[in-house]
């Protein structure tokens, strides 16, 4: 009766695993750290003060919906962050990995449509840009809360790149999480002198057919690359700033499609298809099918070298005319039943300690969102001491070549137009 044994074995395994999955009950033994909210800010709706938030948060579980495609980031969230909020605040953090941002936007929308206004399933989302705009405009977000978070005192809310998310004001509906900047990635063993401007890159592509491509928008990274070409083609981002304007769009953007269509025959697979995601593109680069990669994270190349996926000679560069940078955030859906715990997690993510841990290349390598000027001397020194990976540019070089993002409707329009003007022959 081998079969019976097998089934028994499985049942046992399942029971053990289920037991392991149960949130560990931690009763009233937690000593809450002394924290006080940022002065002069109204407490978030439904809570009298920060203590009330901390009290309510105890024992709650936060379903944190986030892009789950990086084992490094997943590991940091389910490990370091989850352990810390459990230990300190009695909050259980449950990471829910999704393949794509719109998935959870749609999920909350679906719940709103079906009338689940009180007990939604999403408590915290990692968000920015179009998805933030959609959620905000559909009134799917809870807030304002973020400026009340105790650790928001380290955030420079006067910095427009933090206070505005792709041109839409944050207004306390999002808590900053990290910063990112676009970089180009290449293998120095194959290309000794990489192009340093968009023009040089375009020339290189035409001189080396089949060795370049970019992820198809709406992939986040591919979309950013297309914006760089558009900035270049319309003679600078200044021409596209401000509210979305269809007439301006129709007048300016054809120049961009022309450039993209010109290089298309020289792309990988002669531009008949594009990698459908950034990760697919990474694979092409890793295997030498294409000679350039790109990332909306300056430290990503270094960690890919670290875990053996990229050659050790991998390096990054930014265009002389600069590359696009943005801030990413976390936000709380309006129907989250665990808003207090979600705020506690958002607050922890903003802490110098968490930001420092996040910035370590072996943990994630994400750029900190805190203003060094608002930090204590000790924290400042710690941030300055973060080791850079072999392929990562210096903070100064990145900061010196920063371009702003367009407002989200521009992005949507560019992504949609790209499909018809470039992708579909």
């Amino acid at each position, binding site marked *: 009766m081998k079969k019976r044994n097998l089934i028994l074995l499985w049942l046992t395994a399942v029971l053990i695993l289920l037991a392991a999955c149960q949130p560990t009950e931690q009763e009233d033994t937690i000593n809450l750290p002394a924290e006080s909210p940022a002065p002069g800010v109204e407490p978030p709706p439904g809570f009298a003060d920060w203590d009330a938030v901390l009290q309510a948060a105890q024992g709650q579980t936060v379903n944190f919906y986030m892009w789950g495609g990086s084992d490094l980031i997943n590991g940091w969230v389910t490990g370091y962050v989850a352990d810390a909020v459990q230990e300190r605040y009695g909050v259980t953090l449950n990471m829910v990995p999704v393949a794509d941002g719109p998935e959870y936007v749609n999920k909350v929308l679906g719940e709103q449509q079906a009338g689940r206004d009180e007990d939604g399933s999403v408590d915290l989302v990692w968000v920015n840009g*179009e998805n933030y705009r959609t959620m905000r405009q559909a009134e799917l977000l809870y807030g304002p809360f973020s400026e009340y978070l105790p650790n928001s005192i380290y955030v420079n809310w006067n910095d427009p790149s933090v206070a505005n998310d792709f041109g839409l004001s944050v207004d306390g509906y999002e808590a900053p999480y990290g910063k990112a900047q676009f970089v180009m990635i290449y293998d120095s063993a194959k290309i000794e002198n990489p192009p340093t401007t968009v023009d040089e890159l375009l020339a290189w592509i035409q001189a080396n057919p089949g060795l370049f491509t970019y992820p198809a928008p709406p992939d986040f990274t591919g979309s950013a690359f297309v914006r760089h070409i558009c900035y270049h083609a319309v003679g600078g981002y200044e021409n596209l700033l401000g509210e979305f304007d269809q007439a301006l769009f129709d007048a300016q953007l054809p120049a961009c499609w022309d450039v993209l269509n010109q290089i298309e025959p020289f792309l990988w697979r002669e531009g008949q298809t594009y990698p459908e995601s950034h990760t697919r593109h990474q694979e092409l680069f890793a295997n030498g099918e294409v000679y350039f990669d790109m990332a909306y994270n300056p430290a990503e190349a270094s960690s890919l070298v670290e875990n053996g996926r990229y050659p050790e000679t991998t390096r990054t560069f930014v265009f002389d005319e600069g590359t696009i940078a943005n801030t990413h955030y976390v936000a709380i859906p309006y129907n989250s039943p665990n808003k207090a715990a979600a705020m506690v997690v958002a607050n922890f993510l903003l802490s110098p300690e968490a930001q420092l841990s996040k910035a370590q290349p072996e943990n994630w390598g994400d750029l900190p969102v805190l203003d060094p000027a608002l930090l204590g001397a000790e924290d400042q020194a710690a941030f300055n001491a973060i080791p850079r990976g072999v392929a990562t540019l210096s903070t100064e070089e990145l900061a010196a070549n920063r371009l702003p993002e367009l407002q989200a409707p521009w992005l949507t329009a560019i992504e949609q137009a790209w499909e018809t003007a470039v*992708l579909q022959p």
Partner: protein
Amino acid sequence: MPTRLRPYLLLAPTLAVILLLFGGGVLLALMQSVGYLPFLGRTEITLDAYRAILQQAAFSQSFFLTLWVALASTAVSTLLALVCALALRRPFRGHRLITFIFQLNIPIPHLVGAVGILFLFSQSGFLARLANLAGLISQPADFPAIVFDPWAIGIILEYVWKTTCFTGLILLATLQGVGNDLETAAQNLGANRWQRFRYVTLPLLTPSMVSASVLVFAFTFGAFEVPLVLGQRFPSMLPVLAYRSYVDIDLNARPEAMAMNVIITLLIGVLIFLSTCASRTKRCAVNGER
């Protein structure tokens, strides 16, 4: 228990599940595709969603791609399954082992199959590296584009890999069920090898082949994971297109997703009705005459 009611009572739980979950789901998809959802306060019926998707070039391209993939996968896998079943039909040394290997990929999820095909056939994949070692190609781009390609060969390969064994096992079971007496009888009546295959084995296998092909066709037409892993970004297969519309951040795309579902459902229904009718015409005609 009254005897007349007995079968209905036995069927009740299954029918409840199928009618509520499946029937209800299809009905709700139909309702949502025309914008009718009374419990959400929407009672206006509109065909906008159908109009919208039928006007999209992307939809018709997706449709033809999906049809091509489903037809090609079904045809190739059925043919291969026939060859395999005939080869595995009679016992030989190692028969058990090879039959077991033949069954081996029945429990393998399509997702893993797709990963295997990806690792094997991508332009920098295992086979490309072997080709490079053999001096056939010098760089990845020289290797034929088999995954993420316009003809969806990678998707078809995965479906063929998985479904050949499924169809093959069904055919093998049918062959074992009918034995070889009828072929012996045909041989005795003067049928040579080819005639025995053409006039005895093949007709005996036809009902099973049609059934298996219908299952395979319907599955490949409606499947999601494999095109997502191995498919081109554009045009995408219909189910992927439908799911993308469904999870679009614009809720107005949902009726379009539902309309695509309804169209997929209708199309499969019609195609399968036609194919089963065609395969049974002969029998129908004969039955009609008497």
